[in-house]
């Protein structure tokens, strides 16, 4: 639990700074509410906020899982054949330079206002890091390891399950961690384009009413969702690849 001390100190300093700014510069509450006003608002509207947070969490997780379920097999396809790589890769890169957010209105027009289109938009925002890091990971098997497998007369399936996939896991996980953070961004954007519930929707309506305490409450909720999801992935990572250096070294430095 000692590792919790430092982030907590940072948090306290942040709140103190927040106070200092709002008192010293006499910022009016409709621009920057005091921390206690936000805390009080969260307490009062807790059930209301939780309902909207749940909607956004569903959308984020939906798009996130879709990113993994489609992204990793896509990476497999691309790494398994150079023809497929040449056919797909340039378009994949192009799709990333294209602002995916600009597609959101179109997707709403096509699929309506329900949960489904929000998940699709979230997926579009979040899937790329999974694909790219999976490709890098699946290619990370070094020459001597390839030769070792060949010398043992390993079949393609054996090479994949016993060497290539486990060796790719550290890289895949780093992509997944980026993706989970992106997926929340994706869900909020999707709600901005057209929604009747969710934290993104709440942000817009709070903004329209100059309700800054609600705005700050929503930001606090978004932060909590992001942090919880991120650390859930980190926990899973530590369970699945305890042998990887990033996890081993973390354990030794936090002693």
């Amino acid at each position, binding site marked *: 639990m000692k590792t919790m001390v430092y982030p907590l100190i940072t948090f306290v300093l942040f709140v103190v700074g927040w106070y200092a700014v709002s008192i010293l510069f006499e910022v009016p509450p409709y621009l920057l509410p005091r921390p206690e006003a936000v805390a009080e608002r969260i307490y009062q509207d807790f059930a209301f906020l939780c309902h909207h947070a749940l909607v956004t969490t569903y959308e984020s997780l939906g798009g996130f899982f879709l990113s993994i379920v489609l992204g990793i097999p896509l990476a497999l396809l691309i790494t398994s054949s150079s023809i497929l790589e040449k056919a797909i890769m340039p378009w994949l890169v192009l799709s990333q330079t294209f602002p995916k957010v600009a597609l959101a209105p179109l997707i709403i027009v096509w699929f309506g206002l329900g949960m489904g289109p929000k998940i699709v938009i979230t997926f579009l925002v979040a899937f790329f890091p999974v694909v790219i890091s999976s490709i890098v990971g699946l290619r990370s098997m*070094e020459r*001597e*390891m390839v*030769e*070792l*497998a*060949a*010398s*043992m*007369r*390993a079949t393609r399936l*054996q090479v994949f399950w*016993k*060497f290539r996939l*486990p*060796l790719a896991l550290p890289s895949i996980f780093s992509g997944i961690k980026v993706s989970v953070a992106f997926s929340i961004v994706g869900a909020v954007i999707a709600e901005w384009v057209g929604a009747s519930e969710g934290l993104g929707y709440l942000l817009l309506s709070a903004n329209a009413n100059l309700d800054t305490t609600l705005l700050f409450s929503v930001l606090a909720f978004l932060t909590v969702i992001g942090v919880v999801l991120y650390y859930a992935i980190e926990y899973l990572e530590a369970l699945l*690849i305890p*042998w*990887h*250096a990033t996890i*081993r070294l973390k354990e030794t430095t936090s002693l």
Partner: protein
Amino acid sequence: MSVDSVIELSGVTQRYGDLVALQGLDLQVNAGEFISIVGSSGCGKSTLLRLIAGLMPLSEGELRVNDKPVEGPGEDVGIAFQTSALLPWRNVEQNIALQLEIRKLPRARFEHELRRLIDLVGLKGFENHKPYELSGGMQQRVALCRALIHDPSLLLMDEPFGALDAMTREQLNLELQRIWMETGKTVVLITHSITEAVFLADRVVVLTARPGQIAEVVDVPVSRPRRFSGLSAPAFQQACDRVRSLMNAPGLD
């Protein structure tokens, strides 16, 4: 051709596009023999090992292992590389047993051999350690066990001790000699250390650089077991000097 030759090369030539890596190699390695191959870097010695291992197709000439033309990795061959190439999520025992798993050999039949090998290279008590908990020398010992567990008659080694410190290297040289004497396997060792090559081998094959050709095969007429303290013996010195002069490195003596 001798009846008990394990490896036979005749007119072996290897090209990469326009580059000739190896040219017109003729060599016979007898059963139970220890052969070292030396040469400056880029002379194609690693290529030669990979050809014998069946890890790359031969461009020209004839190459036979156990009296059969090499058409891919064989059943009766074990390899150790420059890096230990251990899987980081497997412990020592599981890394050695990987060879059995991939080749679909029954673990139970080799259980005794596994214990014996671990004991032989001094890894007893480390069976459950992961690679990152081991020193470089110990990692190479695991790789050596993995190359030997399926009891191949031919052991191929590509500079396996190149990255180790001098002390560990000598220790592993002695262990390799002991393992070779106990098991009677045929060993081909690629190295750039003249001392290591001469100390271990019955015959040292010296390759010239670009294209790789056999400059000479130097005999090392020293009885076994050899010791490092005996390296000053005339027979050792003569062999070392001969190899050194063939490698055209006069500054080294």
